């Protein structure tokens, strides 16, 4: 009951939040919501132990696919978004055949190369991808009315509510997957793939499943982004964006579901409050690079471990037991 009340209160805060913010802050809130989905999907990918450098490009696949489907074929935007997610998942499935023959940093380099190939294809083929300038005037979400609220997608607040709903459902699905026997098997594949395989687990299939699911959600986040900003190009999904995702993930820590989300929220808020207010906006890549190095060096378990540490002692064992219960 208390848990339900807490959830309800949290939901109310999220709904009320944009009304306490300025217009430009509302826009940032929309990006933050989309990035939360991206970074949560990245953690799903890392559950089986492989780290990809192509995840942001996969997000871009969803963005390009959804934009083109709505622009060229006139498909209704929400449907195009879902199809964008499916396209990203399918591309990931195709990439899994070469990539999962690699491990460790060969996988890192391989995923980077695969991502670069996709970006070069966008650059090379003006038709349909628009070349280096990318796609412009991507159809916005059509306005609609659900009775209690009229969505006017000219307003960031409306898009925020829409994205919040999509991201909320996606996170819930990812949470369910992780807390299911499927999620437990992902962890098993990560920690001891030989023992998992001896127990009858098709390790390659599970790695592929995590990769495809994560890519689908990344594609969905890309579609959300494309129809919000209205213009995308190959550089919207370059290494710099990947560094942001890596930084959020590593700063937050991958041990828990909420770690990377926490990393994303905390760093974005810090960035907006501290850097923008102080006029150091251009220093963002510098500061992210620095934070990335420092967190690899000094916080191997990430922010999440600090949060856990605060409740440690009395609760640590109980938490672990509670997680077990939820997972089986």
């Amino acid at each position, binding site marked *: 009951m208390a848990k339900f009340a807490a959830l309800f209160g949290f939901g109310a805060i999220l709904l009320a939040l944009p009304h306490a913010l300025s217009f430009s802050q509302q826009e940032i809130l929309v990006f933050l919501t989309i990035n939360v989905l991206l970074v949560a999907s990245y953690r799903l990918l890392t559950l089986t132990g492989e780290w990809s450098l192509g995840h942001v490009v996969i997000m871009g696949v969803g963005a390009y696919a959804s934009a083109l489907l709505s622009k060229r074929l006139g498909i209704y935007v929400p449907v195009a978004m879902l199809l964008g997610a499916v396209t990203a998942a399918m591309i990931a499935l195709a990439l899994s055949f070469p990539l999962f023959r690699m491990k460790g940093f060969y996988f890192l380099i391989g995923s980077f190369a695969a991502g670069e190939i996709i970006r070069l294809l966008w650059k090379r083929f003006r038709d349909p991808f628009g070349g280096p300038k990318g796609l412009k005037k991507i159809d916005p979400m059509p306005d609609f009315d659900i009775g209690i609220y009229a969505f006017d997608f000219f307003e960031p607040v409306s898009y925020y509510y829409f994205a919040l709903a999509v991201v909320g459902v996606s996170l819930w699905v990812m949470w*369910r*997957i992780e807390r*299911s026997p499927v999620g437990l*098997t992902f962890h098993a594949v990560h920690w001891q793939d030989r023992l998992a*395989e*001896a*127990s*009858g687990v098709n390790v390659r299939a599970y790695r592929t499943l995590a990769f495809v699911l994560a890519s689908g959600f990344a594609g969905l986040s890309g579609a959300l982004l494309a129809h919000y900003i209205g213009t995308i190009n190959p550089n919207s999904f370059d290494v710099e964006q990947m560094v942001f995702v890596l930084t959020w993930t590593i700063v937050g820590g991958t041990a828990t579901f909420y770690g990377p989300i926490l990393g994303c929220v905390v760093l974005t808020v810090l960035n907006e409050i501290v850097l923008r207010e102080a006029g150091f906006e251009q220093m963002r890549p510098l500061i992210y690079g620095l934070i990335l190095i420092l967190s690899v060096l000094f916080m191997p378990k990430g922010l999440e471990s600090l949060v856990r540490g605060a409740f440690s002692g009395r609760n640590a064992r109980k938490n672990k037991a509670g997680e*077990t219960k939820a997972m089986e």
Partner: protein
Amino acid sequence: MSPPVLEIDDLTMRFGGLTAIDRLSFKVERGAIHGLIGPNGAGKTTTFNVVSGFYKPTGGEVRLRGETISGLRMYEVARRGVVRTFQHSTLFAELTVLENVLIGTHMSFPPNIFAAMAGVDKANRRAARARAEEALDFFGLAGLADELAGDLPHGHQRALGMAVALAARPDVVLLDEPFTGMNPEETRRMMELMVKLRDTGVTILLVEHDMHAIMGLCDRITCMSFGRLLAEGNPQEIRHHPDVIEAYLGGARHVA
């Protein structure tokens, strides 16, 4: 007499120029405890790795109930009923004891992602949990279900390794040095458990250095040396087999 459950037929395994297994053949009878012994480097663990599908043999084949299983992937071999444990304590150290055994139930209760998302796999999860708890009970680990596997003392880790294998309800279980690092009391208890396990109809093939345990436990023993079959028989025959004595003593003399 029933046909052998596992047949190793003319098996050869080469790594570059090194021949680890050289035309090895032996049979494992259903419901037996079968020991595989030999001096260090005889090729026992390599044999395990081939039978369990970790390596693809260079020549020859392994048959389970007449069906060829050599060349299959490890999980495919497992799905046909041959499950192995590993040397040392190979466990999911970061997961709890119960979660470790739940992975062992993977084949009997395969997870379904759509059912999991829709929340309609409750019965499956309950059954998997019941099976896992049963396996923990069998090995006396029930009280430790929520401990992290990596935090367990060594003897318990070995037992947990077997519980993971057993939760899969295998027909044949391959145990790689199950008594290593156990004190005499733990070894004795583990031997009792293996007999109990055999009596439930599971066939056990084990590699082990503890001669006392092997002789007291096995119905039949195969002795290897330099990748080849040296001798086969019941413990009494093996104990007095001149080639076996030569192999062990000769090896010892050589080392000395």
